[in-house]
């Protein structure tokens, strides 16, 4: 133990926490495999990318800041309808700006809602998020003149990306586009969680009672991450509209809010990639199981969920990461 070693140890240790690992590089290489191996599944692949982005947005608040939510579809749906209405009602279908608009709308509503979110904890918090989700769904349901109600929003068309890349029938463009947005979303989220702000969020999750005693205005941190998370969820929703050219009420449904939490729990919270792994498992399972038994496939999801929670409390990714981290 030299003195040099001692003084550099905490810096190198902290730097190592945020370093790109080979697993990450390998993972992102693997996301290109569907182009070659499963070209008929590109639509599913882009749905997975969108669900993964949505799950990452939930991980930011649930996994890092400890805000449990059962109503995040509100922001996903807001983004989806923002893009849909922009195209169907105003005739603007430019993808990039529409996506930014979706993030802005969801982020703004998220910012307003965050004032409510920071006031409550535990069960009350879950109920507030649940309530927000219900409000969103029923508002869209009631405003049939605007949203198309249960019939869905028609007449959505998405222009070519950069005026060059058409959304093709096979989903090449859709998957490429969704993958790029997912990657950017992960980059932003990764930056956030590896910053001092990310550390403050983990502090809130670990012991909210201590935060004021170390001089932290933690409710401002919470409002900030909730707003960012809402914007990210809105972008995911906007992506869904752009890749499917339709918006149904299901974008705001409780089912969607619950599914995204299930994905996150399956993959593992508080590690970003858990959100992606969870989305892959959930949607691939749905695709395969629904083929076998279209009505009862949630049975298997329920079973999987219980097994994971009981035997892999840190999620599937957390379970396997343990073996890697032990060596490091």
């Amino acid at each position, binding site marked *: 133990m030299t003195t040099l070693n*001692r003084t550099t140890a905490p810096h190198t240790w902290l730097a190592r926490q945020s370093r790109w690992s080979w697993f990450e590089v390998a993972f992102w290489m693997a996301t290109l495999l569907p182009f070659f191996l499963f070209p008929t599944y590109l639509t599913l692949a882009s749905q997975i990318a969108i669900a993964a982005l949505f799950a990452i947005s939930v991980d930011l608040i649930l996994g890092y800041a400890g805000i449990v939510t059962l109503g995040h579809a509100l922001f996903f749906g807001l983004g989806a309808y923002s893009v849909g209405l922009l195209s169907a009602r105003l005739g603007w279908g430019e993808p990039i700006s529409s996506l930014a608009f979706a993030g802005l709308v969801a982020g703004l509503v998220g910012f307003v809602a965050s004032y409510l979110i920071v006031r409550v904890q535990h069960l009350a918090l879950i109920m507030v998020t649940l309530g927000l989700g219900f409000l969103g769904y029923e508002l869209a349901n009631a405003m049939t003149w605007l949203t198309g109600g249960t019939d869905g929003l028609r007449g959505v068309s998405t222009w070519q990306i950069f005026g060059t890349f058409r959304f093709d029938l096979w989903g090449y463009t859709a998957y490429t586009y969704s993958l790029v947005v997912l990657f950017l979303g992960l980059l932003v989220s990764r930056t956030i969680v590896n910053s001092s702000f990310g550390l403050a969020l983990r*502090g809130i999750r*670990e012991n909210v009672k201590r935060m004021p005693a170390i001089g932290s205005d933690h409710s401002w941190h919470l409002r900030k991450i909730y707003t960012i998370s809402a914007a990210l969820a809105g972008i995911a929703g906007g992506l869904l509209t752009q890749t499917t050219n339709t918006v149904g009420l299901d974008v705001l449904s409780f089912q969607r809010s619950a599914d995204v939490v299930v994905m996150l729990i399956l993959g593992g919270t508080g590690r970003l990639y858990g959100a992606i792994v969870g989305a892959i498992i959930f949607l691939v399972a749905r695709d395969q199981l629904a083929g076998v038994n279209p009505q009862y496939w949630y049975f298997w999801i329920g079973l999987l969920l219980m097994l994971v929670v009981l035997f892999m409390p840190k999620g599937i990714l957390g379970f396997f990461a343990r073996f890697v981290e032990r060596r490091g």
Partner: protein
Amino acid sequence: MGQTQPIMLKTNALRKSFGALQVSRDVSLALPRGCRYALIGPNGAGKTTLINLITGQLKPDSGTIELDGEDITATPAAARVRKGLARTFQINTLFPELTPIEAVTLVVSEREAVAGQFWRRLSTQTEAIDEAFEILTRLRLADVATRPTRTLAYGQQRLLEIALALATRPKVLLLDEPAAGVPKDESAMLFSVIAGLPEDISVLFIEHDMNIVFRFATRIIVLVSGGVLVEDTTANIRTDARVRDVYLGHGAHG
């Protein structure tokens, strides 16, 4: 020497009741700069309540609190910390999954108002990390700086309690039974760390072990049934008949 120092923390007739139970009765204290005062009293005397009132976890029914000449009675708890009033907890109130280096760096970055920066890597906040590691080294926690807090020995966790408070750069530090649950031989070590804190910090600590109180405190405040029974130098308290009565079990409140 204590008399010549400016008063850093002052409470004037602090009063607090929970229903019919009066837990603080007109408590008036004054801590000069650099003091090492002990707050003692039997269980239920209202020692922790008093700390909660001073730090803002509880609101007094009446009375005022001044920190370095400024009235902070209505100031929120987090803002009081930023003004230089820190505390530790009798029961560990730590961040179990964070490592000590992360936890103390968090405190430093909150103090320097950089904790909200979400675009800059934590590992590039070298000044905050350096300071955090320096504090951990001083509190003999350097070797466990990168281990999750929950895996630390209990005594080390008690030291981390103090490290977190110190990282706020307090003018006044309130230690609520810093050695609670620590074996006797280790608690002396803990208090030698406390005795070695920067000399300009005013320290008020709650402690039950009278040997430790007599050894490390220059002045003692005795709290009984929510009110100050007596406040005096360690030497005088040692021979005070009323204090002896209280500690022999005859309540002075009758």
